[in-house]
């Protein structure tokens, strides 16, 4: 979808190129994050794709078209562009802002209005906002409008330069999750610049790790980069908690769950004692068929059968789609040192510290 071949940017007077013969391939529908320290040329690389910065060497193809051979303004109308400063036009209403590219492309009024109405909904804003001016919106709302404006003419490619960098961390988290859902739904090809490795890991289907001078150190999926950083630079940039970051990417369903100390409510106290002894614990989980009722302490078992006991609910129960990092959190904070997994009310199994750490060291 996007292909950079030996692309360079050498500023006049600079001793070293900002980007040196970079080759990068982005497939259709991929979400590629460009990440690296300041001066690594990630923003320069992004801005060469829509020629806000003109490359001094190499070639760039966008959707099969040689980007350097078409007029820059025409190229840009087919590429969505979102920047950190947002750059909404203060003298135009939200509706007019969103309708910018359709206006430049000469769409008729009715088509543009329909599109604006769709987009305000897509980015989760109220239609009442359409007649307001940008200064009346919060930073988070403004960046939603920025995304809507970039999507207006339905471009196949979106370029984003630290789009969520200027909003507070809570709003940033919301925007990241929403945008990821949106991208998956719309199937856009996204190139996304960030200096925040956690953001790069969370959003990217592939991460391009750049070093000073636009050197591509590693280009791979987040899982692969976290488990096998190719060199010291990548390892350093990933920072601490590499194992935890990897766990955040892996769903519980990818790990091997165990059944754990479980007994059906029809069982007897002797069965319960035997199961607790097998697992060397002093509690047991109670099932009603496949339904998880809770757990009881050994001291609660006063009668020979289990009818009289009142199971206590597990503090946290996770779904197979939750991440292993959440499972680990449940293990270390919960009393029983385990994480129970339930899907649609049905008991799936449990994870303990051992089964989770096996996933990290794998």
């Amino acid at each position, binding site marked *: 979808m996007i292909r950079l071949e030996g692309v360079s940017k050498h500023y006049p007077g600079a001793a070293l190129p900002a980007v040196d013969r970079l080759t990068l391939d982005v497939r259709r529908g991929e979400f590629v994050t460009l990440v690296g320290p300041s001066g690594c040329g990630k923003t320069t690389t992004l801005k060469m794709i829509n020629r806000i910065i003109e490359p001094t060497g190499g070639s760039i193809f966008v959707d099969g078209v040689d980007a350097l051979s078409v007029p820059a303004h025409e190229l840009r109308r087919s*590429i969505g562009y979102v*920047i*950190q*400063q947002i*750059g909404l*036009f203060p*003298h135009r209403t939200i509706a007019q802002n969103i309708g910018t590219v359709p206006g*430049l492309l000469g769409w008729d009024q009715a088509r543009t209005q329909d599109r604006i109405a769709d987009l305000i909904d897509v980015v989760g804003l109220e239609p009442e906002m359409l007649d307001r001016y940008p200064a009346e919106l919060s930073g988070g709302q403004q960046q939603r409008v920025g995304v809507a404006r970039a999507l207006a003419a339905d471009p196949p490619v979106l370029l984003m330069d630290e789009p969520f960098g200027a909003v507070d961390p809570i709003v940033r988290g919301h925007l990241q999750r929403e945008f990821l859902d949106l991208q998956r739904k719309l199937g856009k090809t996204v190139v996304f610049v960030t200096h925040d490795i956690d953001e790069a890991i969370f959003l990217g289907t592939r991460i391009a790790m750049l070093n000073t001078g636009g050197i591509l150190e590693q280009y791979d999926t987040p899982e692969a980069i976290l488990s096998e950083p190719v060199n010291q630079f990548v390892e350093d940039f990933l920072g601490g908690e590499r194992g935890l970051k990897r766990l955040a990417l892996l769903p519980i369903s990818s790990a091997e769950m165990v059944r754990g100390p479980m007994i059906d409510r029809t069982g007897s106290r002797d069965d319960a004692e035997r199961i607790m002894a097998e697992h060397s614990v002093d509690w047991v989980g109670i099932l009603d068929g496949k339904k998880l009722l809770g757990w009881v302490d050994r001291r609660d078992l006063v009668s020979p059968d289990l009818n009289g006991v009142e199971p206590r609910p597990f503090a946290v129960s996770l779904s197979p789609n939750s991440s292993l990092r959440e499972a680990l959190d449940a293990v270390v904070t919960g009393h029983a040192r385990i994480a129970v997994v339930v899907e649609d009310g049905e008991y799936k199994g449990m994870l303990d510290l051992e089964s989770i750490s096996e996933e990290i060291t794998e």
Partner: protein
Amino acid sequence: MNLVVAQAATPLFDWDWVTRNLDTILEKTLEHLQLTGVALGLGLLLSVLLAAVSIWKARAYKPIAAFTGALYTIPSLAVFALVAPIIGIGTPSQKFWTAEVALVSYTLLILVRNIVTGIQGVPAGVSEAARGMGYQEGGLLARIEVPIAIPAIIAGVRIAAVTVIGLVTVTSLLGLGGLGFFILDGLRRSIIFPTEIIVGVVLSVGLAAVIDLGLLMLGRSLTPWMRAQGR
């Protein structure tokens, strides 16, 4: 003693004189307006051209700013004295253009500076977003940057208008017309005639206030979005 008699004989403000000379008052007011309007119009036209050059060729801004700044520092009487021998003050049209050259030269510094700083003040992110969406240079300037600079440009026009209205009063010293005529005439009589002076002063101040207010309202109506900023 004489002074009291004189005051009794000629009141501070003589309404009869005003009624008798209504035609002249109207004529001089219109003359004043015309001199101001033409000076502002020409000044704005020239300033837009100079500002355009300054924006396209950044290196040109310093010499342009220096030149318009130098014009601004020449005392107004000296400018009239310099221009008069070149254009002449024989015919009414010569007088008119002598006045205009001087008046226009005073508007340039204020107008060029406000247009250029207004456009340079457009946030970099706004211009970059516009380029990134496919605006070409001309469209970017006309549709995005100039509209955003309107508040700064109108502010400049307001200062220029008030300055020119004040200066037009001075042009009367050279017999070049406008409301200054009354002030000069009132002072020149053997006994100072306050009515005439008051008419000249009040009308020129009033004119400045009305035009300033008019421009302020024009600016507001052109920039509905500015009200959103304060909210």
